[in-house]
């Protein structure tokens, strides 16, 4: 398959990006400042992220909620126009095909899909759609996230009205004489926005942001930011073998849907809610400076193998190594002492509360 590039590819180069192949795209892993500075600058000021590799999927038609609710366990019938929800595509056994953000627009739903999953996602979704449903993957717009405590103040200067949005709410605004759709959302644990901006205007938007010292942030810092915020990354914490209850994401399944069902894997999920799961996603704080990477084996204090790390790195804002992983549910209580096997040696760690880094969102 040919390597794909976002509209901003050449501009990233000018900004000093180092590229990495990610989900079929050449994407910036970091810029000249490096991951830690990018991370800190997002937490203390604001940073922008080119997330145009993600799928911006639009679907419209009559009785769409009924069709989509079979594969997405969100309460779409009661989702108001311009409201967003974090949810999933589920397979028959309740496993996660992808995690997503769905927003009800005036005449359609917009679903933001992971880059690596989007082609398969569309196949899976279209199984539930009828002849009267229309769908397409939008390629006319780039997707840009601005994250950080100063993002509202800065964006308001260029896109009037955005600072009035509440968390997980969106609307159409105007930028440079054209329409731009903005939601107050993101995946860093910071206040922030995500914007569908016309490809012809994205560079101008970025130039405006750079003038306000909003730095470009690569995939490296995106990973440390989301991990500190305790957020799942598809392909690591989530896959088709894991259901949302095991992933400790029960909150992301609407209460009404949990009770009424009618979506893929509901029986299994209902059973897991009532009786518990054999494994659970937890936060893990290794002792000292040891970094437990994905695949690291987890042991109990008595050396019984109880799980595996799914993501692990150094958390620049908490200034210690952080990790997430799946453990046997008997060992999932916060404070439980566990051991991590790194390069053949076992190091002590403990099960810790998520997120590692707390920040309040605009409510």
């Amino acid at each position, binding site marked *: 398959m040919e390597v794909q590039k976002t509209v901003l590819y050449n501009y990233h180069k000018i900004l000093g990006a180092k590229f990495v192949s990610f989900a079929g795209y050449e994407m910036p892993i970091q810029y000249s400042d490096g991951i830690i500075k990018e991370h800190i600058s997002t937490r203390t000021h604001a940073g922008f992220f080119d997330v145009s590799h993600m799928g911006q999927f639009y679907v419209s038609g009559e009785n769409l909620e009924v069709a989509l609710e079979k594969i997405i366990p969100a309460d779409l019938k009661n989702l108001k126009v311009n409201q967003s929800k974090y949810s999933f595509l589920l397979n028959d056994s309740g496993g996660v095909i992808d995690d997503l953000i769905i927003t009800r627009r005036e005449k359609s739903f917009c679903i933001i899909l992971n880059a690596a999953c989007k082609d398969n996602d569309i196949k899976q979704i279209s199984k539930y759609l009828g002849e009267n449903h229309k769908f397409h993957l939008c390629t006319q717009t780039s997707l840009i996230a601005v994250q950080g405590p100063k993002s509202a103040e800065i964006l308001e200067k260029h896109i009037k009205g955005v600072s009035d949005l509440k968390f997980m709410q969106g609307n159409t605004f105007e930028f440079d004489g054209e329409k731009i759709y903005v939601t107050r959302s993101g995946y860093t644990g910071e206040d922030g926005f995500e914007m569908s901006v016309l490809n012809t205007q994205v560079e101008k938007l970025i130039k405006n942001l750079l003038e306000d010292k909003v730095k470009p942030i690569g995939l490296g810092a995106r990973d440390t930011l989301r991990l500190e915020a305790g957020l799942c990354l598809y392909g690591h914490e989530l896959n088709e073998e894991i259901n949302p209850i095991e992933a400790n994401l029960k909150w992301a399944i609407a209460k009404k849907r949990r009770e009424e069902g009618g979506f893929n894997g509901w029986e299994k999920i209902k059973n897991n809610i009532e009786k518990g799961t054999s494994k659970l996603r937890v936060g893990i704080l290794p002792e000292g*400076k040891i970094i437990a990477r994905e695949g690291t084996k987890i042991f109990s204090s008595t050396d019984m193998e109880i799980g595996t790390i799914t993501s692990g790195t150094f958390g620049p804002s908490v200034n210690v190594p952080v990790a997430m992983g799946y453990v046997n549910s008997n060992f999932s209580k916060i404070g439980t002492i566990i051991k991590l096997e790194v390069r053949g040696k076992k190091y002590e760690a403990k099960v810790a509360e998520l997120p590692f880094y707390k920040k309040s969102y605009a409510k």
Partner: protein
Amino acid sequence: MSEKKFSKKHEWVSVEGDIATVGITKHATEMLGDIVFVEVPEAGKVIEQNNQAAVVESTKAASDVYTPISGEVTESNKLIVDDPSSVNSDPEGVSWFFKIKIKDSSELDGLMTKSDYDKFVAENPS
């Protein structure tokens, strides 16, 4: 101390008597990014040339550091264990990794001079 010599795996060596000081190059740190963890060998450990001797981890990944010279480790640098970021700031100075008692000084002949190493890096961009 002698002029530094360099390996293709981006380590540097500086010799004083029969002791070689080993570290990683500025170029290596630039490839690695922000270093957040370092593991160094204990004194007394015997390591053969080109075998793994230490570990560096950046925010992105873990990498092995090899010894360009065979011998017995006499000392390792506690500074970089306590402050891994110092490897980024001064990799070819205070942030050396370990000192090793040279077993076979002819191994030094196979290493590159500074100008050869710079050329090697320029010809092998990563």
